[in-house]
């Protein structure tokens, strides 16, 4: 049965993920024990807290941003492009989209769409700089996206001033864009037992995931993209214009990155201000890798990640440093790859054995 299971690639992934999770829990337990904490009660506390309705809402909301970010990273990874710049892309996009949404009064429906489109365009354009530099000047996208993250921060700082795109709120030490009016907001989804709302644009993340899956697996363009990632030389020989693919994939990645801030912007904060969350782009890299660049895998990975982030908050009340979850997260990430590699190797071996067996050859290919 095991051999049958291993023959299926999704089964391999699931098995690898489960084994890795167990491993990560073991590592975490060891660290906790060494530091003098009781692992079972720690996990119990996290679990109990994590399943409270408020926590569920927060986990889902958090996961939606993680998901979009990881998806953006995954688009790049699928063709061996390393977009470290998701962080800068989504922040710049959120900021300009918020400014646009706050400045323009549009009818409901159109308003939201315009904000989202602005975000996608800005994210894509910012990523496009890296793409252009790569194809015309050969600048590694690793460097350029790192630099663009910083420069993006500078641009945001420049624009987010009361002289330019920001609106000053009396009595507040915060600066932010003018709040988006009610016509531009996206109502939340109620969750029983909680008065927090699940962001309406969680559905945007779901749509993006479906779109990703469809485009990558079912379209010509997706085939070209995957082929380029699997073997650029083979893709070029097959007629793929590699440079064009780099630009398209990078811009697409940036456009999805641009959406990262949307659930929160249109569902919660309505304005981009100094306390808008940062760093989600970097989290997305880990989650994309954990989810093996696969839309379903990333969904599970981002929920797990968000759950750990969320439920760890209770630990401080038990005087356990909540950073223990960083150890869990890193352990899952590392072990899932190792386990996947092992499971995959076993699977591949079975594949080959099957080829040999079904061809009835003991020795060699004739």
């Amino acid at each position, binding site marked *: 049965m095991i051999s049958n299971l291993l023959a299926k690639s999704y089964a391999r992934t699931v098995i690898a993920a489960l084994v890795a999770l167990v491993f990560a829990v073991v590592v975490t337990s060891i660290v906790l024990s060494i530091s003098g904490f009781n692992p079972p009660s720690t996990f119990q506390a996290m679990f109990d807290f994590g399943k409270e309705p*408020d*926590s569920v809402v*927060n986990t889902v*909301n*958090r996961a939606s*941003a993680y998901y979009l970010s990881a998806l953006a990273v995954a688009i790049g990874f699928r063709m061996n492009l390393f977009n470290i710049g998701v962080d800068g892309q989504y*922040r710049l996009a959120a900021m300009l989209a918020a400014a646009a949404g706050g400045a323009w009064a549009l009818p409901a429906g159109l308003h939201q769409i315009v904000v989202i489109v602005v975000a996608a365009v800005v994210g894509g354009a910012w990523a496009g700089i890296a793409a252009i530099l790569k194809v015309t000047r050969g600048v590694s996208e690793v460097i350029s996206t790192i630099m663009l993250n910083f420069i993006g*921060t*500078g641009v*945001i*700082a*420049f624009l*987010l001033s009361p002289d330019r795109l920001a609106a*000053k*709120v*009396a*009595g*507040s*030490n*915060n*600066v932010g864009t003018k709040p988006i009016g009610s016509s531009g907001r996206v109502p939340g989804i109620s969750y029983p037992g909680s*008065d*927090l709302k699940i962001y309406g644009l969680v559905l945007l993340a779901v749509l993006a995931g479906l779109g990703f899956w469809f485009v990558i697996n079912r379209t010509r363009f997706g085939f070209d993209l995957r082929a380029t990632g699997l073997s650029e030389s083979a893709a070029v020989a097959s007629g793929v214009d590699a440079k064009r693919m780099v630009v398209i994939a990078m811009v697409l990645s940036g456009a999805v990155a641009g959406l990262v801030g949307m659930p*929160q912007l249109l569902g*919660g*904060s309505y304005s981009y201000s*100094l*306390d*808008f*969350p*940062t*760093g*989600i782009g970097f989290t997305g890299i880990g989650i994309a890798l954990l989810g093996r660049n696969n839309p379903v895998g990333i969904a599970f990975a981002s929920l797990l990640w968000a759950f750990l982030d*969320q439920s760890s*908050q*209770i630990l*401080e*009340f038990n*005087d356990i440093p909540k950073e223990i979850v960083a150890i869990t997260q890193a352990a899952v990430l590392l072990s899932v790859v190792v386990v996947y590699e092992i499971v995959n190797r076993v699977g591949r071996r079975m594949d080959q054995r099957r080829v040999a067996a079904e061809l009835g050859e003991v020795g060699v290919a004739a």
Partner: protein
Amino acid sequence: GGKKANTGGGGGGEGKKTVKVGLAYDVGGRGDKSFNDAAYAGLQKVQSELKLDVKDIEAKEGESDNDKIQRLQLLAQSGYNPVIAVGFAYAGALGKVAPKFPNVKFAIIDDDTIQQPNVADLLFAENQGSYLVGAAAAKKSKTGHIGFIGGVATPLIKKFEVGYIAGAKKVNPNIKVDSKYISQPPDFGGFKDPAKGKTIAQGMYDQGADVVYTAAGLSGTGSLQAAAAAKKWFIGVDSDQYLTATADEKPYVLTSMLKRVDTAVFNFVKGVGEGQFQKGDQRFTLQNDGVDYSKSNPTALGDLPATLDDLKQQIVSGKITPPEK
């Protein structure tokens, strides 16, 4: 007193009807030797003088509003009352949490936007305190050239800057003031990059400034190092940084602009305990010692206090109004 010290109290307090005080930090957290530390000092005083259970929780860089909501909510749910949110970043979160816990008294520092019956806004006249140290700097400067280093270019820190410059100009209208911020929001790294604080301060000293006022959280330690190395003056911020400076640095700490977050925290808790909770604005100014300058290095200050106290009087009496922006 470390975290371990209050473990027993927090855990064992559930059955008894003890008052538990919760405090949530802004990014930077305890130990920044200025803003957050001042809040912590207040909390410690609450613990030792009022014999209350206290709990302080740190923020995570780049977190979202939901994390802040969750943090405040957890404190409120777990029986902490009052709960103090340190920093304007908590405004949005507190606005959502406070109505859900009408019996819990909240306070927020540095923000004036929440209008709730159970929220007190603790506000500081940083510009007044900065005005005084600005005057001190101008008086002390031999070169007629002084500096200001801000951690992150937020409106709050700019308030320090304008107060400082106004104070300096009052004493010496021709004074040259270099201003520089370490980072730009939304990058809050400037509050914790001592390396850059040091480089900027060095640059200012090299170019002739002989007094530098640094309002940059932990980055200020770098600036202080540079002052000691250049043997020039350093002005600290929020807490009295003379007290935390090393022995070789102490002689170069001219004074510090005190933002008595500690007093504010302590008084707020004490007031709640005595049933005197006041909603809305509570301004901490020179008048009520909410802001001030420190006199812990009298050798350095020399005869400055005379001038400064005079200016202070004029501000208190309304003769001088330091600008806010």
